[in-house]
């Protein structure tokens, strides 16, 4: 049982993240009940391991990493292609070499439903990193901690995720772009 001071400090750090953790858990598991279980398990693991958290480092990155590892060892993740989250180089490697494209048009991004669909179709590993960057607003160095990859990989994976999302949207809108 952790010391009382620890658990109240933990409470202070974790409470503001409950909503973020829950919605990210849902994106990973795609299931309400499982998402809540994942967050519960994450909180209890994080509290037990709180002694190993170094003050001054990013608590959000630390607990998101625990969430991710909890997800990766969950039944659902193991049953459904857990490996897609662990590939070194998720698909779409063909899109990295595209140079600047002066013909590129502004996507019709006011169509949120289309963007949601495109996100759903994106490779899970690319979607995951995009959510950590754009939704959770983690810095590249903190995303590197969550995913346990080098920062250069974070940068290129985020780029590939955006390119992939862009291509999904282009396919959706076809020639009208």
């Amino acid at each position, binding site marked *: 049982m952790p010391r009382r001071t620890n658990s109240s400090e933990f409470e202070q750090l974790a409470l503001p993240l409950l*909503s973020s953790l829950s919605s990210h858990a849902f994106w990973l598991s795609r299931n309400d009940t499982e998402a809540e279980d994942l967050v519960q398990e994450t909180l209890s693991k994080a509290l037990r391991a709180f002694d190993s958290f170094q003050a001054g480092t990013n608590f959000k990155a630390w607990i998101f990493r625990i969430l991710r590892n909890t997800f990766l060892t969950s039944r659902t993740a193991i049953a459904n292609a857990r490996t897609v989250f662990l590939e070194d180089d998720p698909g779409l490697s063909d899109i990295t070499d595209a140079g600047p494209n002066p013909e590129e048009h502004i996507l019709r991004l006011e169509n949120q439903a289309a963007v949601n669909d495109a996100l759903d179709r994106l490779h899970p590993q690319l979607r995951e990193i995009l959510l950590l960057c754009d939704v959770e607003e983690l810095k590249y160095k903190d995303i590197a901690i969550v995913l346990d990859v080098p920062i250069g990989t974070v940068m290129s994976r985020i780029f590939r995720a955006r390119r992939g999302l862009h291509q999904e949207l282009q396919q959706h809108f076809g020639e009208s772009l």
Partner: protein
Amino acid sequence: MTQTTPVNDHPEPIQLSAFIDGELSPSELQAIQRHLTECHPCALQVLSAAQLKAVTARASQRFLPPPEVLKRLASQLVPQETTKPARAWSFGHWAWSAIAAVLAIAVSSIVWWQMRQANNLTAELLDQHLAVLSSGASPEIISTDRHTVKPWFQGKLPFSFNLPETLPPDTTLRGGDLTFLRGQPAALLLFTIHRHEVSVILTQRSGNPAITGMPVNSSGFSIKEASTRNLRIFAVSDIDPTELGSLAAALQAVQSTQ
């Protein structure tokens, strides 16, 4: 990541991606900014990428956890020697501020999105009211005295509000509770008008879109909205919408000092 970008040379797309994330070194940043002022295609790409980033952030709104899930999870964090579940909510102002800050994801003013949000918000407000009607549990603070109810919320919410001295005819304050609306901390006030239950939810205005176009009537219930500079006030009940509007207006009127 370390290369510099001559003015006549387009930056790599991957650099533009890092640029919109604010992840470039000062020298890279300077070079790209200089390039963007002179190169329309690249500026267009940056605009497009920034839009995509913003819209990705908004997509997450789909999966905001429901208030009851947040309550359950928060109660898990409370030290075990605390037995009463309601004590989970006695954490200080800082916590609510932090929650609000995290949840105040940049909200768009795109009209259709507001409409979609409005529909979600209607559903959430009805859920909250139905929960009040169906739960046998009494509210956390039970009192008809505004001098008891108002102070109870102090320190528990990242905002404050006033309660009217005089309520509309046959309208009685019953109590209050803490809740979440669209993932943000909110005050739930319970009233009765002619013995009909009325739920009033007050929340901070920032982060909550205006809900123009929200159906006034839904499943036999009416929703009335009023806003002040800082607050949004929603009243839900099955009573005559005019009377519901009077209560919302009375609450709106006393917030003027905020």
